[in-house]
C-alpha cells in the first residue's frame, strides 16, 4: 500500500517536472494591432452566387468549393490592395477562411475602414448604375480623338460620352454597336451579351448499348459565341467611388465553319463529321476606380477586321435605390401588379 502511494507520488512529481512552467506576462500590451473577426459568408455568396448551391454530389460540391475559393481570393485581394492605412509589417495581416470568416490583425483605423467597406457593400440601399458603349471605327481614328493607343485605358470626363455617341449619327465609318446600361447591387456581377451562340458537333463518342452490344456514335455538342460580351463586377469603395472589374470582349466565328470527317470504329459505316470552327476573340480585362464624373475608355482591335478598331467607354456611379428613375426608352420594373383583365362577356 505504501509502495503504491509512493509510486503515485513519484509519477506525479515526474509529470510535473516534464511540463513547461506556465509563464504569465503581466506587462501591458503596447502593440497597436488588435485582432478582429468578421463573418462575411453573405458577401461571399454575392460574389459567387453558385458557391452554396451544392446538392451533395461530389462534382457539385467541388464546383461550389472552387467558386468559394475564387470569391475568397477576390475579396482578400481587394481589401488587401485598398485598405487604408495600408497593411505594413508582419504584425498586420488579413485573411479570409474558406468558411467565410475574415480575420484582421490591424490597427483600429484599418478595422474601421474594413467595417465601413463591408457595411457599405452589404447594404441594399445602394445600387451601381453602369453604362457601357461600344463604338466601331477606322483603325487609328480614336487615337486622333484623344484616346490612348494599344488598349491603354484613358480616364475621361463623363460628359465626353455624348461627343463619342454622336459619332454614329452623321458618319457611316463609325457605328455605335451597343450601349447597354446595367443596374447591379454592390459586389454583384452583371453581364451584357450582343451576338449569337452557334451550336456545333465538337466530337463523337462511341457508346456500346444492349441488346446486342450495338455500337452507337453519340455527338458531343459545343457552343461558340459570335458578338460582344461584357462582364462587370462592382465594389463600392466609398459613397462616391466605385471599383469596377471589367471583362469586355468581341468574338468572331469565321464562316463557313470548316468540317472534318472522323472514323470511330470500323463497324460504324455512318460518315461522321465534326466542326472545327475558327474563333477569334479580343478582350480587355481591367480593374479601375471611378468617381461619379469619370468615364474610362479603351480602344482595342476588332476580331476579324484588321482595319477596324473598337472603342469601349464605361462609366459607373453609386446611387440610392430609392432615387432610381427610368430614363426615356427604359422600363422601370416595379412591384405593382397588373390590372386584372375584364371578365369576358357571358
Amino acid at each position: 500500500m505504501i509502495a503504491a502511494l509512493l509510486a503515485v507520488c513519484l509519477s506525479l512529481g515526474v509529470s510535473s517536472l516534464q511540463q513547461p512552467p506556465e509563464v504569465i506576462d503581466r506587462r501591458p500590451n503596447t502593440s497597436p494591432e488588435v485582432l478582429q473577426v468578421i463573418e462575411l459568408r453573405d458577401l461571399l455568396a454575392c460574389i459567387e452566387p453558385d458557391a452554396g448551391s451544392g446538392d451533395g454530389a461530389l462534382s457539385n460540391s467541388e464546383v461550389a468549393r472552387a467558386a468559394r475559393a475564387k470569391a475568397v481570393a477576390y475579396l482578400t485581394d481587394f481589401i488587401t490592395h485598398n485598405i487604408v492605412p495600408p497593411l505594413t509589417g508582419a504584425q498586420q495581416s488579413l485573411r479570409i477562411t474558406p468558411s467565410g470568416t475574415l480575420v484582421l490583425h490591424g490597427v483600429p483605423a484599418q478595422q474601421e475602414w474594413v467595417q465601413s467597406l463591408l457595411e457599405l457593400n452589404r447594404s441594399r440601399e445602394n445600387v451601381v448604375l453602369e453604362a457601357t458603349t461600344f463604338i466601331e471605327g477606322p483603325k487609328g481614328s480614336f487615337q486622333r480623338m484623344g484616346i490612348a493607343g494599344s488598349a491603354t485605358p484613358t480616364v475621361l470626363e463623363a460628359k465626353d460620352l455624348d461627343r463619342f455617341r454622336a459619332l454614329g449619327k452623321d458618319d457611316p465609318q463609325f457605328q455605335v454597336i451597343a450601349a447597354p446600361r446595367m443596374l447591379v447591387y454592390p459586389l454583384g456581377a452583371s453581364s451584357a451579351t450582343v451576338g449569337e451562340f452557334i451550336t456545333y458537333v465538337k466530337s463523337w463518342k462511341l457508346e456500346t448499348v444492349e441488346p446486342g452490344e450495338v455500337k452507337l456514335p453519340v455527338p458531343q455538342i459545343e457552343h461558340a459565341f459570335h458578338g460582344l460580351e461584357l462582364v462587370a463586377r462592382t465594389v463600392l469603395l466609398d459613397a462616391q467611388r466605385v471599383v469596377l472589374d471589367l471583362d469586355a470582349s468581341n468574338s468572331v466565328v469565321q464562316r463557313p465553319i470548316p468540317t472534318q470527317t472522323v472514323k470511330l470504329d470500323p463497324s460504324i459505316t455512318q460518315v461522321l463529321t465534326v466542326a472545327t470552327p475558327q474563333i477569334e476573340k479580343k478582350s480587355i480585362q481591367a480593374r479601375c476606380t471611378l468617381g461619379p464624373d469619370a468615364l474610362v475608355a479603351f480602344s482595342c482591335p476588332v476580331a476579324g477586321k484588321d482595319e477596324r478598331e473598337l472603342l469601349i467607354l464605361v462609366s459607373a456611379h453609386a446611387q440610392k435605390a430609392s432615387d432610381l428613375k427610368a430614363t426615356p426608352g427604359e422600363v422601370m420594373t416595379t412591384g405593382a401588379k397588373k390590372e386584372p383583365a375584364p371578365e369576358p362577356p357571358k
Partner: protein
Amino acid sequence: MSERFWMSVQTALDERRDPLGDAQVREWLFEHPEDALEVCELRAALEQFERADIPLRARRRSLALPLAAAAALALIALGAWNVLRPRPQATPALTAAQELELHPVVARPDLGSVQSWELVSACTTSEGTITVRASEGRVETENDFAHRAGELARAEAPVHHEESWNPQ
C-alpha cells in the same frame, strides 16, 4: 451689251420717254443694278436742266415725284442686287468625328484611376488555341496545340466505353 443698254436709255430720253418704261432697260437693270442709280441721276439731271434752261416751258412739277422715283429705283436696285448677288459658299457643318479630331478629349486622371489592365487576343483553330496577353510593359504568348492534338486523336480512337441496359 452695255452699249445697247445706254443706247436704249438715250433713245428713250431723246424721245421724251421715261427710260424705265422700256422693257429692255428694266431687264438690264435687274441684271446690273449698279447701273440703276446712274440712270436715275441722269434722268433727274435732265429734268433739272430742262427747268433751268427754259423755265417758262418747263412744266412745274413737284420735287417729291423725282425723289419718289429715285427712291423706288434705288429700292428695285437694292432688291435686285440682293437676289442676284453672288453668294459665298455656306461653311459645311463639321461631323462629330471631325469635331473630335479638331478638339480631342482630354484625359482626366484626377477623376479616376486604372489599377490593372490586360489585352487578351485568342485565336482558336482546329489545331488549338494561341493566346497573346499584353499589358503595360509585358507581352505573353501561350498555346495549347499539343493538348488539342491529343483531343483529336481521342476522337478517332474512342476511350469511352459506356453501356446502358434496360431490364424491361
